[in-house]
């Protein structure tokens, strides 16, 4: 397949082709190709050090890939080559939002302010790059009201309305995770990239997260997530991609993947003939 010649059908939102990322002598990702389909939850799983977060950082512009092409197609048909955009242009132009493995909230800003900062670009435009806004024109005030309405909507969805006026740093861990997702959603993304959203959550918070993710998908955003917690992955994802040592070892539906002997071997480090016995253990007990 020649680079740049593939055409995308509209049901593919992100196409990663021959992605490689080298850090010095280390090949963190080696010739990885994958697709994220529109309106689906795609999970990227793999053992520690498999290169999942590196893929994320390439997609969201925090790393420039050594090689490869990342094509994102928006709903209106516009295509963007993510590796050519600057990091802040990826959320702004291509509609890709992300969260972080170690939560990165604006802890000294209130929950509401966090959601308003996320609408920066829309509000900047409405305020005439600050100049018209300083004059207090009605068009800007309308945009401010709209931004607060949108923040309220996501506060409600993330079950944070009661804490709207509290500093983000004051929230419990699970609420911070939900706030980070709500904040990403306030940028109006078409593709939401979540880096281990369920890490450190208790079962109840984890269930609330699943509901939130399903809701986001039903609203039309596609989700790409990294996850360690197998129960989350199997329950919510429509499509699973498994990485090991920077290479794709399996790709398909959750059922297909969990029965793939290569995946089981990668996770448990066992011989292929022992695989059958451990599938059950693996799926019930998570990946601990």
């Amino acid at each position, binding site marked *: 397949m020649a680079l740049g010649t593939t055409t995308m059908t509209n049901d593919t939102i992100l196409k990663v082709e021959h992605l490689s990322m080298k850090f010095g002598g280390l090949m963190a990702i080696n010739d990885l190709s994958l697709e994220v389909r529109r309106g689906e939850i795609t999970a990227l799983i793999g053992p520690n050090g498999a290169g999942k977060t590196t893929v994320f950082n390439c997609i969201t512009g925090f790393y420039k890939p050594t090689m490869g092409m990342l094509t994102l197609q928006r709903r209106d048909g516009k295509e963007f080559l993510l590796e050519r955009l600057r990091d802040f*242009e990826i959320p702004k132009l291509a509609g890709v939002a992300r969260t972080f493995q170690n939560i990165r909230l604006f802890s000294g800003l209130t929950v*509401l302010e966090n959601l308003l900062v996320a609408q920066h*670009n829309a509000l900047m435009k409405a305020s005439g790059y600050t100049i018209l806004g*300083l004059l207090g024109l009605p068009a800007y005030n309308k945009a401010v009201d709209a931004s607060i309405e949108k923040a309220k909507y996501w506060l409600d969805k993330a079950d944070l309305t009661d804490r709207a006026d509290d*500093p983000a740093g004051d929230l419990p861990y699970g609420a911070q995770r939900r706030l980070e997702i709500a*904040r990403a959603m306030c940028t109006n993304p078409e593709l939401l990239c979540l880096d281990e959203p369920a890490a450190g959550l208790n079962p109840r918070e984890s269930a609330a997260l699943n509901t939130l993710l399903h809701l986001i998908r039903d609203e039309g955003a596609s989700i790409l997530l990294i996850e360690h917690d197998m129960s989350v992955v199997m329950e919510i994802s429509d499509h699973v991609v498994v990485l090991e040592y920077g290479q794709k070892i399996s790709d398909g539906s959750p059922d297909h993947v969990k029965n793939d002997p290569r995946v089981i071997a990668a996770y448990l480090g066992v011989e292929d003939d022992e695989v059958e016995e451990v599938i059950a253990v693996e799926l019930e007990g998570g990946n601990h």
Partner: protein
Amino acid sequence: MTAATETGHPNVLAKAVREGIFAGVISFFMFLLFVGVETYQDINNALVWRTRWGLLAIFVLVAAVSRFLTVAFIKPHIDRRKLAKAKSGVLEVSEQKNFFHRHFLKIALIFLLVYPFLSLLIVGKQGSLKYVDNFGIQILIYVMLAWGLNIVVGLAGLLDLGYVAFYAVGAYSYALLSSYFGFSFWLLLPMSGILAALWGIILGFPVLRLRGDYLAIVTLAFGEIIRLVLINWTEVTKGTFGISGIAKASFFGIWSFDTGSANSFVKAWGLSASSVYYKIFLFYIILALCMLTAYVTIRLRRMPIGRAWEALREDEIACRSLGINTVTTKLTAFATGAMFGGFAGSFFAARQGFVSPESFVFLESAVILAIVVLGGMGSLTGIAIAAVVMVGGTEVLREMSFLKAVFGPDFTPELYRMLLFGLAMIIVMLFKPRGFVGSREPTAFLKERRAVSGSFTKEGHG
């Protein structure tokens, strides 16, 4: 627990006696050589020493007795009060503020508006020169500078140690353009601001990638470069001699404050000649400039750009993940902060009538930064209070001639300025590590506006 907190309980008393004796012994050895022994020259100019056991005994006694009293009575008393408060179940957070607290800003503004006339009334024309100029104008210049720097340091979290450079750009813009081209103050005031903002952007570009200590060093270097250029570019700036005879600001072009001129302000109003009118006029200009700075800062904080500045201070990477262009955000912070520095600079030149590189040394940057930090980064009220304390404190020190009676005629209190500042800063930072006003006002709210405690906000990493 209750037994230990009771006053007069043998355990507490015994402990207090022990600690008192201990404090006495330590202070005895500490002060033995400093206080207990004194050297002097006798009649033959030989250096001899004598002992001052009495004085030493006083020092030791004061230390021992106050330690004893603290442990035996004051501490148990404080503990009891805390316990009683905890038992009563009333939280210390008082929602009710008294009248003065609630209307503090209005009261302060009204006071500032009548301040020049008040001083005229109380101390007369000649006396009020000092109060309007040395106290009023001087403090307000620093308030404005600190509010300008607050945008860069307090909101955007970019540590700028060379802020005085923009002050210099503003001052020299006015001095040079008015003496070479004869432009008026009212034309040059906005121009100085724009030029300073331009220099803010010029400084901003190379330091975009730098954070924290590295940013601080480069901005420091920038401040020094500007000063050295002013010293060495003698054909234009007249070097260390400075530029003198800078035109005064006129009353919006209607009246002039030059004594000899035809449309002189004093003549037009039939007043007796005095420089105090010009000073009062300047006072109101700088007051208006300060109000402008405050207004713009307050408005900008509620605009997307202001929120982006604060978000940048909290987490730059998260900003980029939300599509915020951190380059332009940083540059606008530098430019806006620099612009107010430029305004203040051109005002400074008009007020002094003389500028030289002497006025723009690193110490000025440090004092302005100290005001911002002391006041509480981001808080306009706190910074204004800090400016009054630091700059007003300096001026008050000059007035303290009575100290000569205590410390002898050679004592010049101004010389101890930096020593006292250092001490004051350490004390304030010990008790209020986030500055006078450590909390931050949220820019938007759903139900109620609750101040965000300083323990959540970050200082920024450059």
